[in-house]
């Protein structure tokens, strides 16, 4: 069973941090990722550039697109990164997520949907 951990936080507070704090912060994430790889069911994970670098495509009802600058929605907390984990159940995913070196922000845990070869949803 795979879970996507979507990490949301206030990106301005991150960018305002002192270089020393940024360095300790980065090291904490490196350590955390290593722990995930050792015993947390790590499948994948990345940090994202700030929303200032985002581009959003909007689709109309006919499928035509409009390309715009900026994130999908202006929110107080922005998606800053993700991990993809392989876990036995939700409690394991919660336990792994709760070790993140976050001070403020939130993590949304979403089970990854699975489909068989014919595209039918497979229930766990």
């Amino acid at each position: 069973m795979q879970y996507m951990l979507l990490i949301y936080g206030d990106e301005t507070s991150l960018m305002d941090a002192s270089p020393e704090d940024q360095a300790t912060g980065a090291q904490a994430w490196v350590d955390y990722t290593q722990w995930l790889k050792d015993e947390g069911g790590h499948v994948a994970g990345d940090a994202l550039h700030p929303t200032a670098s985002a581009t959003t495509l909007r689709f109309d009802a006919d499928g035509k697109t409009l390309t715009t600058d900026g994130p999908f929605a202006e929110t107080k907390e922005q998606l800053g990164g993700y991990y993809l984990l392989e876990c036995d159940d939700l409690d394991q995913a919660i336990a792994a997520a709760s070790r993140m070196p976050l001070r403020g922000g939130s993590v949304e845990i979403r089970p990854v949907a699975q489909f068989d070869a014919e595209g039918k949803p497979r229930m766990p």
Partner: protein
Amino acid sequence: MVDRLFREERGRAVATLIRILGDFDLAEDAVQEAFVQALRTWPERGLPDNPGAWITTTARNRAIDRLRRDRSLREKTETMTQLAELERLGGDETDVSAIPDDRLRLIFTCCHPALAMDARVALTLKTLGGLTTAEIARAFLVAETTMAQRLVRAKRKIRSAAIPYRVPPPELLPERTPGVLAVLYLVFNEGYAATSGPLVRLELCDEAIRLARIVAALMPDEPEAPGLLALMLLQHSRRETRVSASGVLVLLEDQDRARWDHDMIDEGLATLDRVLELRRPGSYQIQAAIAALHARAPRPEDTDWPQIAALYERLAERSPSPVIELNRAVAVAMADGPERGLPLVEAQAAQLDDYHLFHSARAELLRRLGRNDEALLAYRRALELSTNESVRAFLEHRIAELTG
């Protein structure tokens, strides 16, 4: 009769079948079919010696039929494993003690923090309690379709997010147990706060007590479980006297103590005494100790108010809240006089201005101090804020006394 007995006993069968089948609906359907069979055969042939075992065995057989009939399931290895395990449950209808009691897993799953509070309550009452969707909807004043939707969504989330079906491991228990007890207490309070409502509300109290009994029995190392049970028993023992025949709220000091349920009080006190010996206090135990001091007083004037005030203080140290401070202030007023309690009550004004009990407590103390004009204003404010009919009738009474 069949209905009541079945409800008492069905939880174990549901819990065990969910463990084996991993499917709430299939398990509940099988138990429902067993109920239909019980309705047909019990009145005719008499009650089985061990109804719990009968229900588990019969529901197990219905589940086996279902798995064998269903073509899409029949060939799966998962189904084979499930069938084998169902068959291992034991074939006779006499012994249920050999089957592990899975109800604790069930309640921890139903009360998982990843489910919304209203979903936890509904799911617990439906699966473990055996209330129908219609009954739960009525008790929480929502449409039956809304409640059905809530249950469907909760079960779907348990499945799609893989909320585990288990008692949490020891390191998680301290974090998860309070959540289970909170659900039970919420069910109880929902029944307790609306005494004048239809009977189904009283049924919520009974159901909460029944579930608390199960949890307390299954978690012998958790002192707060019997603490909560004792608290509920002691509060529920006063159910017949809390509202007058004409539907008006009756204050604790005016209740006819002879009509308190003394068997229930005895059980509550004994439960509390046993758990206090463990010397691992918690909020429910302290609240039960407060309720016990009321229960032990033969007359209102015998109440040990200084001790009650001290217990509220300990409660406030554990979980500070303006409502606890309000209760402590009232206890101080009863112990040392209204002039000592009133400033403590009024100290909570900023936090509790929207809370009817703040205004009625303040009004009561002002009335006792002879400050009738101020008391009248406070009673009127309390009346504005309260929705319960019995409470409103009481407040209107007080207002009439002061204006008359």
